[in-house]
């Protein structure tokens, strides 16, 4: 019962966040000095006043601002995000058609980053040796190197110099390796740093010593007991990770010429394709909210102490 109530509160808060994000984005985009007609028409040829009026009417831009806002909100509630100024397609169809490619890229990258981070954490937490210093330096490099540059380096070596992985066209899994590595490496550093920090602390706890005195090996203590502790902060930054993923996807998709949400976002922002920008903002906020709700629920799974309290 408590769980249901909490879930309800969370959903309500989530809806509020979505509404706030949508409204804020709507207002900010209204403040831009641009003339949507110019954006819609492109600067391709002369726009006569009659055409200007027609375009305004077509896109509902001739209505007063509050009406545009009300229309935007009510349409959004029904799942209609409008039509792209530049592609003339509905925003929903643009997002759904690009989403698959980004999900594949992002989930594989998370998997890679997470596996690397777990390995690095298990191998180095609670120790002070050369391996730890090497891995921490790698993490630092990963955190501080722009994904753009990582991507270009990987391409230079593994596609241009030694043609192992193709950069041109979609050739199945082979085309995924370098983009996934680019995005994964960029994520790995933060994740690994946070997890090790937590595991370091866990290993200093009395329970670690107790477990050792029960005869558990050092690895078993790390794997069975301390790793759980390390997972909690990893979960906490999951939403942030999602942000990093979207930002990383923009760059990765750009460098590798992949279809996807990131590429669409960049294009829309660059071209001031307002409906698409709004759509992406809303979609991101939606995912952000969802992830946070799921993470809160997951805490209970990972950390039994929370279940006991609730």
């Amino acid at each position, binding site marked *: 019962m408590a769980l249901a109530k909490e879930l309800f509160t969370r959903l309500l808060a989530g809806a509020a966040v979505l509404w706030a994000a949508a409204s804020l984005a709507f207002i900010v985009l209204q403040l831009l000095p*641009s003339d949507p007609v110019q954006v819609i028409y492109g*600067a391709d040829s002369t726009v006569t006043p009659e055409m200007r009026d027609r375009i305004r009417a077509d896109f509902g831009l001739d209505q007063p601002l509050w009406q545009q806002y009300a229309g935007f909100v009510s349409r959004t509630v029904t799942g209609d995000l409008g039509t792209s100024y530049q592609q003339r397609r509905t925003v929903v169809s643009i997002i759904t058609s690009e989403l698959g490619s980004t999900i594949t890229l992002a989930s594989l990258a998370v998997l890679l980053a997470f596996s690397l981070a777990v390995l690095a954490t298990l191998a180095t937490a609670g120790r002070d040796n050369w391996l730890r210093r090497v891995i921490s330096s790698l993490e630092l490099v990963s955190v501080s190197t722009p994904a753009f540059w990582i991507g270009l380096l990987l391409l230079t070596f593994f596609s241009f110099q030694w043609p192992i992985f193709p*950069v041109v066209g979609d050739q199945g899994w082979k085309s995924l390796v370098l983009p996934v590595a680019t995005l994964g490496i960029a994520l790995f550093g933060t994740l690994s740093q946070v997890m090790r920090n937590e595991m370091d602390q866990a290993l200093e706890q009395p329970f670690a010593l107790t477990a050792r005195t029960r005869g558990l090996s050092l690895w078993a203590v790390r794997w069975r007991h301390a790793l759980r502790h390390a997972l909690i902060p990893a979960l906490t930054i999951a939403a942030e990770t999602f942000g990093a993923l979207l930002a990383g996807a923009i760059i990765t998709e750009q460098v590798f010429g992949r279809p996807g949400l990131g590429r669409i976002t960049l294009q829309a922002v660059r071209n001031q394709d307002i409906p698409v920008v709004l759509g992406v903002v809303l979609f991101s906020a939606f995912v952000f909210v969802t992830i946070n709700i799921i993470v809160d629920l997951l805490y209970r799974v990972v950390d039994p102490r929370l279940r006991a309290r609730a």
Partner: protein
Amino acid sequence: MTKTVARGLSLLLCGTMLAAVPSFAQDAQTGGTLRVVTYEPLCLDQNEGSSRNTQTALQDVYDRLVSEDLEGQFHPWIASEWSISDDGLTYAFTIRDGVLFHDGTALDAEAVRVNLQRWVDDKGAGGVPVESVAVDGNVVTVTLKSAYSPLLHDLSEPVLGFVSPASIEKYSKEDRCTGGPDITVGSGPFKVVARTSGQDLILERNDAYAWAPENAVHDGAAYLDRVELRFLTEDAVRVGAVESDQADIATGVPAIAVEDVEANANLTLLRTEQPGIPWSFWVNQSKPALADVKVREALRIGVDYPALIEAVFLGTATPAYSALTPGISFGYDAKLEGSWSYDPAAAAALLDEAGWVVGSDGIREKDGARLSLVSLSAVNWNNQQRELFAQGIQANLQQIGVEFTREVLDFATVDARFKANEYDLVDTSQSAAEPNLLFGAFQSEQLWETNTNWGFVNDPALDAELEAALATTDRDERIGHYVKAQEIIKDNAYLIPIANPQVLIAVNNRVQGVTFGTSGQVGSYYDVWLQQ
């Protein structure tokens, strides 16, 4: 009329000269897949959202009424012949028989009319003063409200490629913009077989093709089996792809990669001078400081443009002296070359004469106003080299007591600043094969909103030349008017030309017959073949 920016941009590519690797029809081999890495078109319906990228990607999918060569001469294509009335108001095109769209429907006079009418209705005919489009048998007649000599050029452009009316009727705007087989239907030598947005556009030979333009190298179907256009936005990645033989052609090679490409024994670097208006400063004469021709002249001789070009463009641009580039199909005035040279002392003297005295901080002042100039440019007009170049300009101008700042903003913001007249200079280039480009950039009524007279140039003598050139279809007469126009612009420093940009393409040596199109874009793949 012919507007401007995007149009300018779309035409970025009209080129002359240096037609690539020589090719001979008798040698040509049939077959093979050509892999091109290039920029992506946003929307595949040219009437809905047309960009240079769309036009270049689809130039082999759609046929046009007439074909323009690099000297600006016209040849029969879908129109087997045409006549122009003496007053230049009526154009009658006889449509060739037996042309079929990829979907099997006929490209007849009625289909031509539907396409032209759609252009008039949806795009206001791109500013062309079209009165009506009519069909009588196999003749399509275009009537104009006033004489407009570049009409044939406009009709020859990829943006006016004929789309199957059946596909327009059958598919929604949304579908047509996304494009794909059966949707993006033309009558050209290649047809669309697959389109993955964000990734590629795959074209396959149209075996039925028997209506090549008269100036094409060969007849009948194209040589290549397939053309794969792969979209890579990053310059370095496109160059890497062609260097590592993952692609046969890379468009948009950056200056910094020229040395590498030229050193590569498997690659040839093709270059052409971009036709149009050079990368230049439009000078806003509505601002008091710049209304004075002495100040404008000082800006022209106060910067060592040739030295900066050498240092920054690394041999991929030449100093510009005219309002047209040497790449324009006709009308370039080569006499203007070398009309001025770097002379900071003379520039300083001109500013002194104009009453601008050096103030305490080294910047000149007059009546309490500082000689501080802001140049505006849009992100999509900019590139790394221009960024670097601007720093050199700033340093040079600082020495003669002029403060210079360059702002590069997104197009919509730039648009707003233009409307509010909040700028001193505009730096960009425009591209088109047609010298009529000058009309939009300098005729007194062509201010922003309709066109690109950012300088508020209002010169009756210049207007007269530009209007006369628009009224006559006689090529020599037109050249005479444009030469005069270029002189007037130079004498009054209405424009400060900086550099003539080049268009660079890296091509694998096994690819034969690559040319440039009239807009300086990579040309049609119809005559291209692969050595096997």
